């Protein structure tokens, strides 16, 4: 019973956060704002589902499953990169340079400026 309640709770929380993530995507005005939404779905939404799944198999089916952890690991590794790329894309295509604050350093943001040259590293090349 406890297991069922636990699993159900995670499921419901996950569902809510997942829905909120997509809702944010729908509701929010600006692309940068909308970009925040999937992180919800990813973290607590899918995370909740995965935890529920682990708990379900562990508690109800008596079987320890690590697969869900693996998916979580994957999502946590990839989601920031995805977000970064989408943000870059949006900034490059949808914003002007002056919409962004200055970097405060001698080089501009990466999409507008070439990186400084570095000493070549020969030794490491195979």
């Amino acid at each position, binding site marked *: 019973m406890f297991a069922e309640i636990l699993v159900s709770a995670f499921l419901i929380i996950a569902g*809510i*956060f997942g829905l*909120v993530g997509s*809702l*944010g995507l729908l*509701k*929010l*005005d*600006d692309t*940068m*704002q909308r*970009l*925040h*939404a999937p*992180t*919800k779905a*990813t*973290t*607590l939404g899918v995370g909740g589902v995965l935890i529920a799944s682990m708990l379900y198999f562990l508690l109800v089916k008596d079987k*320890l*499953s*690590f*697969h869900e*952890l*693996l998916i979580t*690991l994957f999502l*946590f*590794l990839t*989601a*920031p*990169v995805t*977000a*970064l790329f989408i*943000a*870059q894309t949006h*900034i490059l295509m949808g914003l002007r340079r002056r919409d*962004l*604050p*200055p*970097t*405060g*350093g*001698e*080089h*501009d*943001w*990466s*999409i*507008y*400026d*070439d*990186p*400084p040259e570095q000493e070549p*590293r020969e030794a*490491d*090349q*195979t």
Partner: protein
Amino acid sequence: MLKRIFPHPLLSMTLLLVWLMLVNKVTPGNVLLGGFLGIVVPILTSPYWPGRPRLKRPLMAVPYVLLVIWDIIVANIQVAMIILFKPRARIHSKWVVVPLDLTSAEAITVLAGTITMTPGTVSALLSADGTSLLVHCLHTDDPDSVRDEIKTRYEARLKEIFG
């Protein structure tokens, strides 16, 4: 020599772990196979990963991860509230420039990832020379405090871990 066999020992460990998670069963055969793959795969991919990242205090990563998880939960709720109940006009999004003290590429990556994963902030751009990070904040009235929080709460700890 050892560096050739174990170009990235931590990666090897991770891969063994991943293997066991994949097969979902810890048996001698699986450990052997996983260990084997954990050695072979890094060797095969080592040309793409020149150099070895330095980790000064790897154990500090554990509290860091726990902290981030907690932050994710808390911030998730906050953002959900914003999405659900805040009228669109009253959402004050801001750009925040975070000057970086970190110099390790790995550390910067983890920091940027942390920022993105914790709801409410998304790392959007790095400066071309990697000295500052542009963060988009979903709703804040005080961008400076956001920046300071990032620097103290996350960057400082990462500095400890990566050195």
